[in-house]
């Protein structure tokens, strides 16, 4: 007993000397290997995207960002003209969304691609869309638009932490391939990076953007959402381990309750028959 106690107290003191560090909101790097594009998530999470911003969509119709409120929105900054190389980010998003099965585009969320190239027009959108070839069902749910006032591009991209620049020698834009998830009231809930993420992360981020608003038949999705939490260091969703540990502990408690009562009954019955 004394040794155990000594060991025990010793352990406490040894443990007490281990230094600890923590670093929240680990800064992420974009897939283009440059610190220039780094989005400081800490500064932009929760920011409300300008609801009054006026847009012109693929049909030449005027609309506002606020028109997309009510459902989560995937916001993509992109460009439509293919001077050197075409923007790949929309194609990547299309691939990703095709694999997300529990959240349905149109029904559960919408997509909005905005151009950060001030030379883009309704014409270049049309060209680009024919190149992208969306499934007919997606037409309504995925809007491509340009800003009505191209002067606002810089202010608006900055507001979402998005940086880009034009490289004349390559005739191309350098920019992070990132999908920005907005909540039904237009606030940034997550950044999902095209290259480091899979459909699981996208699905979870879409679920998270709904802010706990779910129907009864979607309880399973909600529970699945609880099982993960976002990992800033790795830039993806990882298992929420303490939840499993807690559930396991609760299970131990319940089985202690039942087994102790039942096991003793067995023992008692045995004694009775002897």
């Amino acid at each position: 007993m004394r040794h155990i106690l000594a060991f025990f107290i010793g352990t406490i003191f040894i443990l007490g000397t281990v230094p600890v560090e923590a670093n929240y909101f680990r800064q992420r790097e974009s897939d283009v290997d440059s610190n220039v594009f780094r989005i400081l998530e800490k500064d932009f999470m929760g920011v409300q995207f300008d609801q009054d911003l006026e847009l012109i969509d693929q049909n030449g119709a005027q609309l506002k960002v606020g028109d997309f409120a009510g459902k989560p929105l995937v916001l993509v900054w992109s460009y439509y003209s293919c001077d050197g190389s075409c923007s790949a980010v929309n194609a990547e998003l299309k691939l990703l969304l095709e694999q997300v099965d529990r959240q349905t585009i149109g029904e559960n969320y919408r997509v909005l691609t905005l151009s950060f190239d001030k030379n883009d027009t309704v014409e270049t959108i049309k060209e680009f869309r024919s190149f992208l070839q969306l499934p007919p069902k997606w037409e309504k749910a995925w809007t491509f638009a340009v800003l009505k006032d191209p002067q606002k591009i810089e202010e608006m991209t900055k507001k979402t932490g998005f940086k880009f620049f034009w490289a004349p020698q390559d005739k191309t834009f350098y920019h992070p391939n990132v999908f920005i998830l907005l909540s039904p009231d237009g606030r940034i809930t997550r950044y999902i990076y095209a290259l480091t993420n899979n459909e699981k992360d996208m699905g979870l981020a879409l679920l998270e953007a709904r802010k706990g608003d779910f129907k009864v038949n979607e309880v399973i999705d909600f529970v699945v959402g609880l099982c993960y939490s976002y990992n800033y260091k790795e830039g993806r969703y990882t298992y929420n381990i303490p939840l499993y540990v807690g559930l396991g502990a609760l299970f131990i408690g319940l089985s202690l309750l039942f087994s102790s009562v039942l096991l003793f009954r067995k023992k008692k019955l045995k004694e009775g028959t002897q």
Partner: protein
Amino acid sequence: MSKKSEKFNLSEWIFTTDHKRIGVMYLIGSIAAFSVAGVMAILIRIEQSSLGPTLAADAMTAGQQYNQWLYFHGAAMILAFLIPGLTGFAANYFLPLMIGAADVAFPRINALSVWLFWAGIIVALLGFVIPDAPDIMWTGYPPYSILTGGNTAFYVFTVHLLGFASILGAVNFLVTVIYMRAPGMGWNQLNMFVWSTVTAFVIQLVFVPVLAAAVTMLLFDKYLGTHFFDPSAGGDVLLYQNLFWFYSHPAVYVILLPALGILYEVVATFSKNRIFNYKAAVYGGMWGVVLISGEVWVHHLYVSGMPDWIRIGQMISTLLISLPVGLLAISLFGTLYKGAITFELPMKYAVSCLFLFLIGGLTGIPLAITALDLHLSDTSFIHAHFHYIMGIFATFSVFAAVYYWFPKMTGKMYNDKWGTIGFWLNFIGVNVTFMPLFKIGVDGMPRRYWNYEMFPQFETWHYIAMLGALLVASGMIITILNWIMSAMNGKKSVDNPWKSKSLEWTHTVNPPGPGNFLKDVKVADDWTPYDYGK
């Protein structure tokens, strides 16, 4: 202990497997924790009694030592005094006597349980004398508990030891009540205290492992570099709070239920009355509390950014607690109806408990309502609320228990005069201390603040609260001294001074020897512990 000529033998006490001695060891340990934590309470009140640092030279020192006092006061009172005092001491000593059993089902496990309890008390007390004492409140929320320079490990090991002691006790007593009742004793003939202990231990057994798991992950995070609760690496800050309160709200009922059980015994005995609507109180009230206890923890997290629908859902389930607790209150108050009431010292404590229960219980209602809690959370209002219901109400019921069973445990009568003086000091003192806190809480005094220079208008109220605390301190010293002096030199008591009908009074001598009963107990079909009317 039965004869005076017997020499006191320490090792006999340490290695005993007798449930009565184990109960007494639980009582001594928990009163020790209570005393030290009480000193912390006085220090806290004195520090708050004036603006600016009162007991320290500068603000930083004041903050650090104040936080350590708060941590120790909270952790020791709840984990080392209230839970072991009610479920360790009272259940150990009286539960086997009430059901006519010679001992508990597993006497050796019982002995192990009290050793673990004492180890827990020692680790808890050590935590206060080491440098860098824990300063994380009894809740230990990360990331602070991980980032702090204080020794969080002491908190974790205290929880482990006391939790494990409690689990062993729970298994033991559930089995004892189920299989070792006297022949003829049916479920509806059990003492209310026995039922309250059974329900409390069911809660304890199911939920303690969750707390143990949560604090273990805290330990890993702080000392072994894991990231369970580190949001930068996929951890979830809020999850600890959820796991913690998933246990710690039910823990409130682990305290409330046995405290009510004791009150039922005392009120029934001194009213010489049967329990009003016994079945509704047991099956509706106590088991109702057990059922709801696991679905209300989010009311501790109303301001923690939980999803809106959970906050509203749990507001409803929290309000629904009023149903089982209301049944218990009606049954307890109704036991007075048409009674033959006498006001001996245990009854004085019990009657005061009825009023503390009303104040503490009713002030819980605004806290259950999410919108009101958005202001009241973490103010002195909540502080006063849980001190009424959990602190004072439960403590007074422990005192009622000690006085009520004092002749049973010692064979002697307590000193009534000093006991009564102590009672009035305690009762007046607690109200003087905590009534002002309700007032300044509504006005916005934050909890866990030694410094309130931005709210100088609260100084007078804090000063009054400090005077109240000094009254309580003097009352507590008189009370505990009274126990010690009376146990040594008190007048010999008759075997059943209260003329109770419960088995521990009618069938055993004072104090009961090994084996408890002189001959085997059998009870008739129509016997109950409360049949005074016959």
